[in-house]
């Protein structure tokens, strides 16, 4: 963190945040700050509240109580539609619009803001996510899962956001594609100087690409540490359980590989 950044408000800040589904409380209270430029992974089992937390930032889930600040400004007092256009969002279900070609999908953010994305910029974004410019005129139905999510990332980056929110972005992909895309996203994060908050249920993925890992269990943050610290000392049984899986897998794989070396 630079000296300058220290004086500026965090990219995202939660204060006494409480969320519920109907009468059922599912999350909080959460007090948390996400520093500018950090890559934070939000890990937890299904139903732990991690999706609700990331969705509450742009009010895709409207919180019960407490406040969310983006760049020091209370989300409640900002224009939600504009705020959403300022933040890159990648969905697990990708959600490309099937009736629009890839160029139109990537340009949709500009279009709803009353603008147009130049074809040169579309090709630049395609290149950024590792796709050939010829993809611009194709329809989403003709893409593989990995290609579709690359377009999803390009669409999120189109309006040059400072913040990227990714809700299980690689959940539906095969392990090889998933691993490659995760590393590319991390490198984009570094090159573009983004602040990234990524939800995942895969601790191994989080350990390998994040700067900071938050573990959610039953609506509470039960661990908050850089990867190296977390793997050394998970602290909470839920975090321990999540870390145990990749640790055991690594050991088993090492044992398999051991005799040969």
């Amino acid at each position, binding site marked *: 963190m630079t000296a300058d950044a220290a004086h500026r408000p965090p990219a995202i800040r939660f204060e006494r945040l409480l969320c519920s589904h109907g009468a059922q409380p599912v999350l909080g209270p959460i007090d948390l700050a996400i520093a500018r430029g950090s890559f934070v992974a939000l890990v937890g089992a299904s139903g732990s509240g991690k999706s609700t937390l990331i969705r509450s930032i*742009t009010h*895709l889930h409207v919180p019960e109580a407490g406040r969310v600040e983006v760049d020091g400004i209370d989300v409640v007092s900002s224009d*939600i*539609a*504009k*705020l*959403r*256009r300022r933040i890159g*969002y990648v*969905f697990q*279900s*990708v*959600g*490309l*619009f*099937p*009736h629009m070609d890839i160029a139109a999908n990537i340009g*949709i*953010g500009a*279009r*709803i*803001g009353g603008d147009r994305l130049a074809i040169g910029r579309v090709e630049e974004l395609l290149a950024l996510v590792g796709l050939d410019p010829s993809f611009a005129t194709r329809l989403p139905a003709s893409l593989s899962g990995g290609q579709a999510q690359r377009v999803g990332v390009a*669409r999120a980056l189109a309006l040059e956001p400072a913040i990227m929110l990714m809700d299980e972005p690689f959940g539906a992909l095969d392990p090889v594609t998933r691993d490659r895309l995760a590393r590319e996203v991390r490198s984009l994060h570094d090159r573009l100087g983004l602040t990234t908050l990524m939800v995942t249920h895969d601790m191994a993925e989080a350990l390998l690409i994040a700067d900071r890992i938050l573990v959610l269990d039953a609506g509470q943050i039960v661990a908050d540490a850089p990867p190296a610290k977390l793997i050394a000392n998970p602290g909470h049984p839920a975090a321990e359980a999540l870390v145990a899986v990749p640790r055991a897998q690594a050991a088993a794989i090492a044992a398999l590989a051991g005799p040969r070396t």
Partner: protein
Amino acid sequence: MTGEWATAFARVPELAREHLLVSFAAIGLALLLCAPLAVAAHRNRRFAAVALGLASLVQTIPGLALLALFFPVLLAVSTVLGEWVEPLGFLPALLALTLYALLPILRNAVTGLAGVDPAALEAAEGLGMTRWQKLRLVELPLALPTIVAGIRTAAVWTIGAATLATTIGQPSLGDLIFAGLQTQAWTLVLAGCAGSAALALSVDGAIALAQRGVERRQRLTGAIAGLMIAALAAFALWPQAHDNRPQVTIGAKGFSEQYILARLIGLRLERAGYAVDYRDNLGSGVLHAAVASGQVDIGVDYAGTLWTNELKRSDRQPREAMIAGIAAWMQGAGGARLIGPLGFENAYAFAVTRATAERLSLGDLHDLARAAPMMTLGTDPEFLERPEWRAVDAAYGMGFAGTRSLSPGFMYDALASNEADVITAYTSDGRVAADRLVLLADPEGAIPSYDALLVAHVDAAGDAGVRQVLDGLIGAIDVRTMAEANHMVDRVADKRSIGEAAAWLDAQIRAQEGAE
């Protein structure tokens, strides 16, 4: 037969134009109404349930009844809002067909909008679309195939149901179907059905093509579909050749005698320099109200019908007193005026075969009452509900062994095949003479007079030229001549068209005028 085909096809273009115009207007109005309704229904589940429930309810009303219901409703509305609300013709047809078209459009729109992929919706919201942007850019385009399917269903239904609009005075291809069914002229029925089907298929095809053009981004397909729809619309809206002659509208109820008399009056008015158009197949009460309101200028009604249904009288009067009473009543109520009787009656009469009459020595209704316990009565579906039957039963005490309800066309066949021993025939029906039936006398005068009366709206009655033509018909048609004209269009062998029968009737009247 060639003459009949020629008459049938000569009317097809104009009827098709009217048919298409009212159908397009109804589909267009339904679309305008459905757009906000569908959006509201999409956003509010309770509203959707109510709106779809009401639309389904409308659909359960038979088309014929829905159209008929608009007549009294609009009649009541017109007394409040003024004469521009016309209870007959285009307006009631438009409203009824619009209501009919709502359900398929609304249901498909709601289904289509509800079926949009939730992933696309989540992305639309997450990317910062407003509700309207989401609707316009994502929901509508993705629901479009389902919505268009609904519009196509509505178009086919509406064009089909528009054939029924003829009963409330809106000309359509249904005119041919109704007239053809009534006179068993199957070429007319065929022409009406084929024309209506062709319209439905071309509109359906044009919409389907337009959809394909939009979905596959095929400019040419879209352009062809656009041209097709534009051509159909232009045909529907094509300005009619303006006729400088004064215009007269003649109404007719839905049976042969009425069609023939309307054409006879029309023939004579055209010869006197008037332009004539027809409103066929009007319900009995509708015809009178239409003449009273001036939407129809001239019609033929029957003394007994007016006496019972319009004057609400149940007392028995001699025929001169009845006619005088009706004339006086018309002066005092509404815009209809009695011109005078045509000279024949179309009354109910009990008829038996000559053999039955001789075997049971039947001459009048007293004789029939005596023999009734051994006889089966064949009658049309409404007679036993009518005051005439109650009057006959009260005067003579009829206790038939059985009764059989038959459509008027089949009553005579039932008598011939001995399935009925006595029927309630109509005195001006050609089949009475053709089958050499014996009509039983009514010495107690229980059955009221059914003199055919020429009735006109006060404005038409006051027009000297029209009046001259109408006056020339008073007392000019005897029952034998009318029966023969009716028989010409009703019989199976050597069947004539309505126009031919009217021309024949006209020639008879002229010959008689020459002889005088």
